[in-house]
Structure formats: C-alpha cells, structure tokens
C-alpha cells in the first residue's frame, strides 16, 4: 500500500494528513511537491490536504487545480485512482472538475473553527464502510469558504446516486442540503470540508476520522 500527500505552497494540513495515513497504513506517505509533473509510480491513494494553497488567490483552490501535478492526478483519478480532498483539498477537487459544485464564502461570512457533528448518509461508500452501523461522527471544521453550492439538478443527482456521503447535523456554513462531503459517481474521488485527518488521536479530541482512512485503504 503506497499513499501520497500533495503539498502546495500554503498547504497547512499536509503533516496532519501524513500522520493519519501513517497511523492507518504503518508506512509514511510519499510527500509530493506541487511542481512535480507526475505522481510517483505505484501510488494507491492520494490525499489533497487542507490549507490555503496559493494564498486562496483568485478563488480557493483555483490555482492549485491548474498545477501540473493536479493535471496528472485528474487523469489518474479518471482511471480509478482513489483521491480524497479535505477542506482546501475539497475546493481543489471541485475546481479541477473531479467533483461537481463549488465551495463559496460561508453564509455567515465568518471563519468557522469548531468540532462539527456529522451524519453519515451513505455507509456503503468506499470511504465509510468501516463505520458499520455508526451514523454520528465528530470532525473538526476550520474554513471561511465551505458553503457547498450546486444547482438543483446536480444536487438531485448527487442524492439519487448516493454521492452525498456526509451531512452536517448543524449546518455551519450554509451548504446546500447540509452537504458536508461527497464522492464522484464512480466512488473513488471524495471531498469534504471537515477534517477527518485531525480526528485520529484521542489527545486531539477524538478518533472518529480513523475509520474513513481505514475504509478507503481496505477497499484498495
């Protein structure tokens, strides 16, 4: 099992992601710098970390989504590579067109930073199977632009196909239909604004995030 974390200028959860991956796989991930044009051979799972890539210039995730490494990532994700983006990573995935919709400024205009209760709304996804019958989890959120938007037709499709994987119990940012995390139609690409990689150590307030990593790793 080989995993990788792509690091952009001003990513700030790359280390959290690496710690979470090493905890679950027993091996440190390959850290891939944004200037690389290709992922290393034999990578099974890639995490796009949180942060403020390229200073959030133009739009959150816009610059990162056009970087050479993400171009290669898009090609591989379209062929089935497992890819997860958390927070800024989710924004990059929508900007890159790997996930539908967009993340807009929070409805309340405030940066929201707190533990957030979530509902698992698809327990059969490749990212949630290890949760079993558990439907309530708590992951931290920390974002200013997490207000998920898509048109009604897209939202209806997402719901019908089971692509809405997590919803907020108490919507912190105005996201359409309380959506916190979605996957693509094939199920290999997943994005969410909350931070499962910051919920893998009891000393940090909880370990609800571990099963998300276990789920996707075991599915490979």
């Amino acid at each position: 099992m080989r995993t990788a974390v792509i690091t952009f200028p001003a990513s700030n959860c790359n280390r959290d992601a690496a710690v979470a991956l090493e905890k679950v796989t027993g091996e440190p991930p390959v850290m891939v710098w944004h200037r690389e044009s290709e992922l290393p051979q034999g990578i099974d799972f890639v995490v796009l970390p949180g942060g403020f890539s390229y200073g959030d210039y133009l739009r959150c995730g816009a610059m990162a989504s056009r970087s050479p490494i993400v171009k290669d990532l898009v090609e591989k994700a379209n062929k089935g590579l497992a890819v997860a983006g958390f927070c800024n990573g989710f924004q990059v995935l929508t900007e890159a067109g790997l996930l539908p919709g967009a993340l807009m400024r929070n409805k309340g205009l405030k940066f929201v930073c707190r533990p957030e209760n979530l509902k698992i709304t698809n327990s059969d996804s490749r990212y949630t199977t290890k949760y079993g019958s558990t439907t309530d989890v708590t992951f931290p959120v920390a974002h200013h632009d997490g207000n998920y938007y898509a048109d009604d037709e897209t939202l209806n499709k997402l719901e019908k196909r089971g692509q809405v994987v997590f919803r907020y119990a108490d919507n912190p940012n105005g996201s359409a239909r309380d959506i916190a995390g979605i996957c693509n139609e094939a199920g290999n690409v997943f994005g969410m604004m909350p931070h499962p990689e910051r919920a893998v150590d009891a000393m940090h307030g909880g370990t609800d995030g571990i099963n998300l990593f276990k789920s996707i790793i075991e599915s490979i």
Partner: protein
Amino acid sequence: MKAIIYVGLKPGVLDPQGRAISRSLNDLGFEEVAAARQGKVIELDLTGEDPESVESRVTEMCEKLLANTVIESYRIEIED
C-alpha cells in the same frame, strides 16, 4: 490592447458579501440601496492587435481559469 474582465456571482447564487454591503450602506443612511452584488475586476495587458481574436482568447481564459462557471458569470471589455 487591454482586456477588462468583470467576474461576478450568477443571478440566483446567494452573495453573502453583497448582502452585508447593502445592509451596511442602509445603516449609513443610504436607504435607497435595495441590493448589492460583489464581484471582481481583472485587467489584462495583451500583445494581440485584432479585437476579435483577442476577445475569443480572453473568453477561453475566462472559461479555463478566470471564472468558475458553476457559480460565476463574466463580461469582457476590450480596449485599444
């Protein structure tokens, strides 16, 4: 040539910053402000000389990077 590109949220997409701006203006006594929308302006200095081909290239730039057409629309003005 110069291209000026106005990027804003599409009609129907909630603009919380615009709403805060219109409320603030109301609070300052500008009761006539019924709504505000906030966008951004991008100016490009370009080497091309044919306005039509410049506009078609700038349109491509908007579609590929400058606007996220899921939520935003754009308008292009070309100046000599």
